[in-house]
């Protein structure tokens, strides 16, 4: 059977017209801009307090749309109120305390330990009030072993000698605990002989699911959240420390081990902030969200307590 088709030339003509009429799109590549909903600014507050702190630092900003080229703005007319669970106001930071990006209030003494829940309330004109609560964790209880130059690594770049630490934490079964570990070194100036400030060491831990390298602070976060049922969950925490500025002819005059007990909320904030900011752009990963315990806003109110031990 032989078919004929008179419409074929017409189809060919239409095809050519169709192709030619759309050629201007070749070079652009952009489909269109994604319409974004109007952003309603919300307050973001950060107040992180250690029991040894002698100054309160609170940062309050307004959130901004990602399409806002000015970005988040500091809110200078906010009132940050810290109250105890009995309703008594502990501290209040106001516009007078604002300087250099944050509200700063010098305390008469260290912040110290506080039983019960503390609440932060942030009020600012034009914004909805935001609040967060937190509880001061108890000071870290641990014993440790220190071995000077106890960890030697042969690498292509030379032989690395580091100090070795082993920490054994007391672990309350059933309670999640998080610790941030730092090791600091104290040097004297090579020329003047003056004592310099404490300098944080570089810490390195072998792969251990309990230990997270916290890149923002350079410390190690030790966590027992997934191992809370084990009494020995936080024993044998091994890591090495290396002083950046150490020289054979000018060794540290002293070292100290600084262990900070973090409230679960603060640990979550530390970890998610580190994952969000320090991981680098990962095209393949889903966007991650930094933890916040402020209802109706962003940021974190976190409490911590620390133990510092100098090592001779």
């Amino acid at each position, binding site marked *: 059977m032989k078919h004929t088709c008179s419409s074929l030339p017409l189809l060919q003509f239409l095809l050519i017209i169709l192709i030619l009429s759309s050629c201007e799109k070749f070079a652009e590549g952009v489909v269109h801009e994604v319409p974004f909903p109007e952003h309603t600014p919300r307050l973001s507050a950060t107040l992180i307090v250690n029991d040894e702190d002698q100054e309160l630092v609170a940062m309050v900003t*307004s959130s901004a749309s990602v399409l806002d080229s000015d970005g*988040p703005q500091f809110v200078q007319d906010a009132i940050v109120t810290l109250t105890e669970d009995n309703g008594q106001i502990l501290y209040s930071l106001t516009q007078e305390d604002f300087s250099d990006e944050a509200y700063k209030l010098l305390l008469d003494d260290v912040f110290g330990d506080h039983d019960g829940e503390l609440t932060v309330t942030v009020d600012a004109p034009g914004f909805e009030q935001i609040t967060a609560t937190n509880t001061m964790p108890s000071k870290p209880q641990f014993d440790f072993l220190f071995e000077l130059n106890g960890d030697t690594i042969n690498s292509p770049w030379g032989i690395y000698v580091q100090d070795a630490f082993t920490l054994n934490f007391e672990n309350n079964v059933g309670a999640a605990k998080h610790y941030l570990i730092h090791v600091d070194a104290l040097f004297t100036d090579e020329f003047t002989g003056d004592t310099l400030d404490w300098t944080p060491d570089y810490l390195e831990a072998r792969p251990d699911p309990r230990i997270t390298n916290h890149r*923002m602070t350079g*410390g190690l976060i030790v966590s027992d959240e997934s191992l809370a049922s084990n009494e020995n969950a936080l024993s044998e925490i091994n890591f090495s420390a290396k002083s950046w500025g150490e020289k054979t002819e000018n060794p540290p005059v002293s070292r100290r081990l600084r262990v900070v007990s973090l409230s679960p909320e603060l640990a979550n904030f530390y970890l998610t902030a580190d994952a969000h900011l320090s991981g680098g752009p990962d095209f393949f990963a889903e966007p991650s969200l930094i933890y916040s315990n402020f209802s109706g806003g962003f940021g974190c109110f976190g409490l911590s307590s620390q133990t510092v031990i100098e090592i001779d």
Partner: protein
Amino acid sequence: MAFIVEGAVCAEIFEEINANTRTVKNEDNGFDCVIETYFCLDLNFSKVLSMRLLFLFQFVIATTLYSQTNFTLSGHIQDSSSGEQLLGATVWCEDVKVGVAANLYGFYSLTLPEGKYNILVRYIGYSTQKFEVNLIENIKMDIELVAGTTLSEAVVTGESFNKIEDQVQMSKITIPLEQVKRLPAIGGEVDLLKVLQLLPGVQSGGEGTSGLYVRGGSPDQNLMLLDGVPLYSVNHLFGFFSVFNADAVKNMSITKGGFPARYGGRLSSIVEINMKDGHMKEYHGDATVSVIASKLTLEGPIVKDKASFMISGRRTYLDLLVNPLIAATNNNNSGVTTDPRYFFYDLNAKLNWKVGKKDRLYFSAFQGKDDFGIASTEDYGQSSSSLDFGLDWKNAIQALRWNHEWGPRLFSNATLTRSLYEFNTGVDISEISQEGDSLRMAALYNSGIEDFGGRVDFDFAPNARHFIKFGANWTYHTFSPGATALELNFGQINNIDTVLGPEDITSNEAFVYIEDEFELGDRVKVNLGVHASSLAVQDSNYYSIQPRAALNFRLPGGYALKTSYAQMAQYVNLLTNEGLGLPTDLWVPSTARIRPQQSWQVAMGVAKTYGEFEVSLEGYFKSMDGLLSYKQGSSFLFSLDTDWEDQVTQGIGNSYGMELLVQKKLGRTTGWVGYTLSWSNRQFDEINSGNWYPFTYDRRHDLSFVITHDFTDKWTGSAVWLYGTGRALTLNESTFSAYIPDASGSGIYSFSADVPSDKNAFRMSPYHRLDLSLTRTKKTNDGSKQLIFSVYNAYNNLNPFFAQTDQDDNGNPVIREYGIFPIIPSIAWRYSF
């Protein structure tokens, strides 16, 4: 769910079955009794249903074994010219209105009471054969059908059997390969998986990619079977092409739900693709040259009518074409050479040997590989350096298959299989300094999976109204979830040669199944079965009993009401970014920490054939558990000290919707219209604050028109138009500032951070595209030549591929969608002999 048999008659029947005394007959039809079935939802159903199913099988076996004197007409149905087995061809007895379909290997078995019968044998695209048979003994008859030269010349006569309303199986779609080959193709390279994406309930991962998302499922929930062997990666060129070479393929189908018991191991779909067996009588070949690749397929007899072969190869040649240009460029840059490379190839081969009248052996093999990389050297006289980056992945499968007819009613297929998928990427940097010091750093990451398996399947047709399948399968998996080999050489000192990363994981997966497709009177057809599977991994054992049921109830007016229920379990998982079919996707097993994926799915629909149009409308609901996803912020870019199990989280999901398919397979004009209205949602405790969110491929509307038309004997045209709701995506919505104490503890470290929207709260623009194709065929003395013109995205609608933050002309930040596929015309030339 509970299975209830109602009525006093049925109660009597079951008593008799328990006594195992005599056959039960229904006087209306002379065969079996009519049982009314009802299904109702009950969360603790599986045990109850399993017991009921076992009970029903007793009944079925009793009714089938104690029947009157029957004889069987059996044999193979094959193409008269090539000897190719015609799976799905139907044998229909007009006198008693019963029929059977040939199985995957062309074997049929029709058992009838003694007598004379008029038999019709039919297959799409072939002339119907009609003959009379006097069944006074078992008769073995191999039937050869004559192919029409084109689909349009297929002869349609007599009362049809195995129309869509006759089939118990629902949610299964078969597309004739001849139709597939005439559809428009990007770069002139026909892609079978992209054709499947045009079907209702099936979505692509993104513009141009071959990933399949079936009824809200992930790509790893599709069991891709090439000649019955699971294939773990189906992507070439980063997912823009699939590994299936249309010239080597005999047929393909996809099953999206209502899974019969013989299928298992995946939650969402079974894609079956079978290679050609090879021409038994003459040598034939196809050569195709397109702008992307060239293909050559040869087939023919090794011993005429006894043994045959088929071999088909395909290779891209962009690298070969640009090599002279690169060489010329390198010659102009003294001391510096750069050699990029990319190619893929695949090779299909099959041997087919009729060992005797009752035995047949097949050997199938496939190998495909992608190789991408760049090598560069810099030579400055006394010092030199070199860099070699490579990324390659490959698939290989082998299958040895033995078909045996144990008698006219019992057929078996035993298969030994191997499937391998490997991914490697690495970089090798070396440098020689002026002083002669040498430095070399090399890192090679590899991952993969290797399976060895054995399977046996039996087809048992005790009479014309029962078709029983049973079998067993065992697979030994070896997973390599990503290891990195490091080699560092610094002259004479401190060389490192080590391997970092997780160790291989092995597992044993097994299943057994039994199913029976049977008729209950004139109006009801049922397929009942049970699939039981197990996994042994890392000292953990998982077991799963999966009941399967499908029912076809013929309504007045030729309509069929169909319903199905299927539970599925899956013991392998693909860790993947959602979208691109990247070779970095990582296959990992269920482990002691990662529980298996499970699902149940119910579907209900109506089907009817209107003239040459098959119409089906289905609604479905699927519930899934144990779904695996990267945690927020995680991806395949593992740090070396992190276990992949720590990077993932498990959750649940559901999908529901309706699908409409109007399909025309015969005539000068063929094609289909498919429409899907669907919802698909997921919930993970560690994603989106634990709230439900739309799956990335939640697509409310999905519409496709596919048409091919023979204008004349020489000219054939085809067109595809598709439309889909935009893909869901998560975007950063806002930013805020915060601080943490610095390393010393006495200062602050302030930062700004983005706040993402709720998971998948945004939608990309809708997707729509028109593809056109025009083929000119010229007959030659020994075959034909074809010139194929294709236009992909004919009206040049730049569909969104990805979105990112950018700056507008005023420097203000904006979020833009980018498309990467403009209009792409192409031409291909094909010679068949």
